């Protein structure tokens, strides 16, 4: 397959189209504008629907509706816009509606800054809305990975009847990189996917009321609500099998960098530079940040590891909480942080590792 040179946001949108996404609704916000812009041109070419909603709340609820009718559907936004969508996302999770959404995150809190950041980690992994629901959260560190994870996200969503979040950042969204695009699903394949949802989706009952679908974001009966929540809890536990992480030169490492997304690729380039200087550095990069790859941290040789270095574009640090839960006090944890829209500097990572090595 030939490489094509694409912007992250556009590549995410094209990957979604190829995965069979035929409904997208969104609302403009930097730095994710190229996602709706791309869909607005592309959807008519494939017989899909693009809507620029009147707000984030409207667009996420349009996706709730389209996905309830069995169509692979997506929305996207950037940090404060994602916060506005939280009601609709929680409704989808409660009603067990499969949908995919992307957060091309920027500085926060509040309106924050329009430059890239990783300030939405807790929001993404802990509470993307009310009610304690969970989602698989996929965190790409290259444009190619953003494509591959977007393509896979629709399968996860349909398998689980649950929302899936692609957690990227303004660098991944706005940079261009060569990508190999996945296969385009045929109209027949897309129709088969939709048909497979017939048991629960609102695909039309043709006057056969026995087959009437009923989409509910809540329950009148406390007993039924508890039962639904128990089913959801069991689903979340089943994601253990879906954990993905990259472990790079961890076995003999004296310092292990823990990072995700854009910070991880900067961390990896720091590892390469350190190794060339004879410093035994390694990297653990969660690809799924929820479920989190806690077990990857058991592969560190703690008899020689001086510290784990948490590298993230968030002040205060957030990702470090999961890193600490994985390290379990087996070695110290240090941080290398930036925020406010500043992009992580490799020089800062190198300096942090050297300071650990010097003790």
């Amino acid at each position, binding site marked *: 397959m030939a490489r094509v040179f694409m912007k992250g946001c556009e590549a995410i949108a094209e990957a979604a189209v190829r995965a069979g996404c035929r409904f997208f609704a969104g609302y403009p916000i930097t730095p994710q504008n190229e996602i709706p812009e791309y869909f607005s041109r592309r959807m008519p070419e494939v017989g899909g629907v693009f809507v620029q909603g009147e707000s984030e709340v409207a667009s996420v609820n349009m996706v709730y509706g389209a996905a309830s009718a069995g169509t692979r559907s997506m929305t996207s936004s950037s940090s404060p816009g994602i916060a506005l969508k939280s009601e609709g996302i929680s409704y989808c999770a409660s009603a067990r509606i499969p949908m995919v959404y992307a957060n091309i995150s920027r500085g926060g809190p509040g309106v924050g800054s329009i430059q890239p950041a990783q300030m939405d980690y807790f929001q993404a992994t802990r509470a993307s809305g009310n009610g304690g629901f969970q989602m698989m959260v996929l965190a790409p560190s290259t444009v190619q990975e953003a494509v591959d994870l977007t393509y896979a996200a629709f399968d996860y969503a349909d398998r689980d009847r649950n929302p899936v979040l692609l957690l990227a950042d303004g660098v991944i969204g706005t*940079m261009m990189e060569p990508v190999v695009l996945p296969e385009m699903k045929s109209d027949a394949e897309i129709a088969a996917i939709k048909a497979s949802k017939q048991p629960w989706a609102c695909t039309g009952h043709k006057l056969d009321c026995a087959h009437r679908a009923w989409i509910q974001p809540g329950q009148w009966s406390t007993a039924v609500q508890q039962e639904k929540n128990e089913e959801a809890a069991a689903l979340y536990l089943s994601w253990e099998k879906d954990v993905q992480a990259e472990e790079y030169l961890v076995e003999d490492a004296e310092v292990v960098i823990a990072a995700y997304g854009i910070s991880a690729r900067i961390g990896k380039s720091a590892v390469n530079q350190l190794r060339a200087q004879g410093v035994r550095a390694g990297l653990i990069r969660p690809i799924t940040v929820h479920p989190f790859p806690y077990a990857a941290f058991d592969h560190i040789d703690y008899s020689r590891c001086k510290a784990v270095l948490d590298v993230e574009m968030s002040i205060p640090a957030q990702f470090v909480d999961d890193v600490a839960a994985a390290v379990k006090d087996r070695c110290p944890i240090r941080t290398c942080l930036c925020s406010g829209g500043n992009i992580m*500097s*490799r020089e800062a990572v190198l300096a942090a590792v050297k300071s650990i090595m010097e003790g």
Partner: protein
Amino acid sequence: METNLCVAGFGGQGVMTLGKFLADATCNSTDKKVTFFPSYGAEQRGGTANCFVVISDDDIGAPLGDVMDDLIVMNGPSMNKFLHTLKPGGTLFINSSIVSGQIGRTDVKLVKAPVTELALEMGSAKVLNVIMLGVYVGYTEVIAPDVVWETIEHKLASKPKLLPLNKQAFEKGLELGRAQRG
């Protein structure tokens, strides 16, 4: 081997297009890793616009490094903003029509090209970026000139009448770049 390039100028001088042509050509014609990262933000008309291109044999970390190997400066304000990012021994390419060659640094190589004047002489101020792309490729040979031209040709496929002028601009740039190579 990794090359970090920053291209900076006024909004409207085509600095993004310059960077994109170079990065796209690298993607199309080589197995190298390449990234393009545009500045975005509260950019104002008449302010600086800039982009970063990284070309590497290995995986690329940040698509914008802290230290530049090469810097293309199309206007004065960009010089003030970015000159300090150029590493000692790096190469500075200036639009000498409007940027002074008195840069106050002796530890970098200086390549001058009066691209604004040359573009006007060719009949369109718009091709100054293509001339500068030619200068850069001619001087650095970071990738083969013919594949860069093929990319430009492909990008302009819907506007064939622009091709002769752009070809002239690119070749003039190559000539200027090659002439200043040590």
